[in-house]
């Protein structure tokens, strides 16, 4: 046969390296990465960048349009919108990343067990099906209602509905990988079950997990905004993109900037993360790229 089956896989690190070359990926992920870094920079250094105390109210300066003093104007309590927005981004991004890390961590552990042990599989997957059957926003609202609005309960509320999706993905990868001869060879070489799970099977799940992780970050930021917008999120004293927009709802006709600017930042952030996720997927799974043409 002239064409060898393409079962040769380079290690993950080598495949990720191809992300850094613009000829391989096009320019979009680079613009996305630049925008994302800019947003992260703004939020991380917000205490130094902020022009005002984001919590200080000034009843005389309510709902002012953008000016030299107030870059993006003020909200209904006379607080500086720009300062609130970049501080709010901190919480939003923190929640996004924390939710992604916890969801991936839990999901990978449960998924490995479900994929490798047949008996555990039946039980775990039925539990996951049950979780998936519940609308995630309802779970979140219920959790926040039970524990009160805090960053911790918002992260938990966003994480729990994401876990079953990660579990399903990891399980499907493990189910195919465990049949690979090199895994059977490891059994024959006397490797212990944890060693097989974490050293042979876990690395197989890394590529899809990196991609899935970016999507979870994006959707967690959105869900947090939605929860805050609905009033089920973090208490309104701490600004997040979601509750800034929620407060801006009633002043929309007087100062639309209160919804527009945090919304724009949120859009840029989510879009950039998704673009980077797509690029990572293409770099890690070249078949996908070919299919899209």
């Amino acid at each position, binding site marked *: *046969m*002239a*064409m*060898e*089956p393409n*079962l*040769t*896989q*380079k*290690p*993950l690190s080598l495949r990720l390296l191809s992300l850094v070359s613009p000829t391989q990926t096009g320019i979009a992920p680079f613009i996305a990465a630049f925008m994302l870094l800019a947003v992260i920079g703004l939020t991380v250094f917000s205490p130094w960048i902020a022009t005002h105390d984001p919590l200080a109210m000034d009843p005389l300066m309510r709902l002012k349009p953008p000016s030299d003093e107030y870059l993006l104007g003020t909200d209904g309590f006379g607080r500086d919108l720009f300062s609130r927005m970049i501080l709010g981004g901190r919480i939003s991004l923190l929640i996004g990343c924390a939710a992604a890390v916890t969801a991936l961590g839990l999901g990978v552990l449960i998924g490995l067990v479900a994929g490798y042990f047949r008996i555990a599989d039946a039980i775990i997957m039925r539990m996951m099906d049950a979780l998936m059957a519940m609308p995630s926003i309802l779970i979140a609202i219920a959790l926040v209602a039970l524990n009160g609005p805090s960053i911790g309960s918002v992260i938990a509320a966003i994480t729990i509905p994401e876990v079953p999706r990660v579990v399903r993905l990891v399980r499907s990868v493990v189910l195919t990988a465990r049949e*690979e*001869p*090199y895994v*059977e*060879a*490891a*059994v*024959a*070489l*006397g*490797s*212990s*079950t944890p*060693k097989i799970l974490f050293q*042979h099977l876990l*690395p197989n799940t890394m590529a899809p997990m990196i991609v899935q992780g970016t999507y979870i970050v994006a959707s967690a930021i959105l869900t947090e905004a939605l929860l805050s917008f609905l009033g089920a999120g973090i208490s309104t004293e701490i600004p997040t993109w979601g509750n800034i927009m929620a407060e801006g709802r009633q002043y929309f006709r007087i100062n639309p900037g209160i919804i527009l600017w945090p919304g724009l930042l949120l859009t840029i952030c989510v879009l950039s993360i998704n673009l980077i996720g797509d690029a990572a997927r293409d770099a890690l799974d070249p078949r996908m790229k070919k299919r899209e043409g």
Partner: protein
Amino acid sequence: MLRNRDLTDAPEVLRIRDLVVELTGNTTAPPVLKGISFDIRRGETVCLVGESGSGKSVTSLATMGLLPKGALSVRSGQILLDGQDLLACSARQMKQKRAKNLAMIFQEPMTALNPVMKVGAQIVEVLDLHTDLSASEKRAKVIDIMEQVHLPDVARIFDSYPHQLSGGQRQRIMIAMALILEPALLIADEPTTALDVTTQKQILALIAELQARHGTAVLFITHDMGVVAEIADRVCVMRHGEILETGPIRQVLEAPHHGYTQALLGAVPSLVPRAARVLAEKPPILIAKALGKTYRSGSVFGKKTEIRASHDVNFDLSPGRTLGIVGESGSGKTTVARSIMRLIEPTAGQILLDGDDIAHLSTAAMKPQRRKLQVVFQDPFRSLNPRWTIARSLTEGPLNYGVPYDKAIAEAKRLLRIVSLPEDALKRYPHQFSGGQRQRIAIARAVMLEPEVLVADEAVSALDVSVQAQVLDLLAELQRQTGIAIIFITHDLRVAAQICDEVLVMKRGEVVEQGPAAQVLHDPQHDYTRALIHAAPGRFWDFAARTPLSA
């Protein structure tokens, strides 16, 4: 017997001249085909023989006008079909010509057929595209060609889906589809490689029969010298995109003049079993007693079904000996291997390893036994963890048993020398090695633990014949040095004849015949063994000695 037909008066169907195929847009890399020329006459079968990467398949794809776009393209040369240059044809003209003037069958009939369409309808589709017959005429024509390819119960198969048919039946459907418009040229790309030997024999006979009836010219691509001896009128031996030698089959087999052809023929294992080795008086290391594995399925309320994958297997194996387990797909030979390795738990019988019954040991109790039993798998591309360096793969076993890392690495270096790989291979990853090299690494990994028994599950089936010979030599050398006992699972009687002391023939989960290799292969008692031996392609010819075998 070798074909010996005089076709010099027959008109030429295909004439290829100085065909050069290159990687698209890469003029500096050496071309994939370096100017090959050959021709095929009406009613003639020309075999393209060569190992992986020799350019056989590229030749056939170029002829069909099916080179992968953006990857390979024709730089120069001519492909004349009945005098017309195919390279000058537009894509539209080529589409007309395919099926009508030239047709192709592939290695894997399951992937070449549409799984969601009934096979009858798929053949009718060919007629829809190229003829304007009425529906009933089409059906009659399809039924006729299906009868010509000797499909049983044609009316039922016409309305079957591909997954409802056996591999041989699917390949017959492909042949029917290829030949229904009576093309002048049939290209067959390894059409029997995925089939069992008995099915292969039938398909080869079918192609020859249809060729005689329709006068089709056949371009047959294969890596199997046995198949070549069965069907070729002429042979072209290819390597690295060049035709090294071409000539009538008898001339190539009897007096090959190119060194590569001689080496290729010399590497074909002989069907004559090797001389029996003296039985050393050693107690058996591994004994299987009434070993069986039955798969039970069915829900709590549903009907229970039982599949007997293997049943009542008995053998004993002494150190330094090789036991061959031979059978076709579905015979249960791999189930036996996996039971012995305890990758699955047998449902009946005993496995005595060095006196201990390991048939039902728990994972923990099995661990000390595992180092006595090691395995080499068929597919060298999947048997090494692609993310691990060779050093890590080789030392995995010893580290599991508490051997210090320095000692394990020293042993790995020693074994790499034995399997003829450089020491710096340790730092590299599996994708940097060829299939044969990886299989040697897999063997080195298996013997790192100094096992008593090595199970080789089709360990050379995925390899080219010359590489296969090297790996078999390596196994024999290791056995001579270490006195390891080998269980060799194979479907290839030639390989079994060359390395096994004893042979066990399996069919549908049962052992049908068992005994010393020389006796079983030379004087088979069971009908099935006889059928298997009879179906081995090229069994009348001794390739290494270049003479016919006396029966």
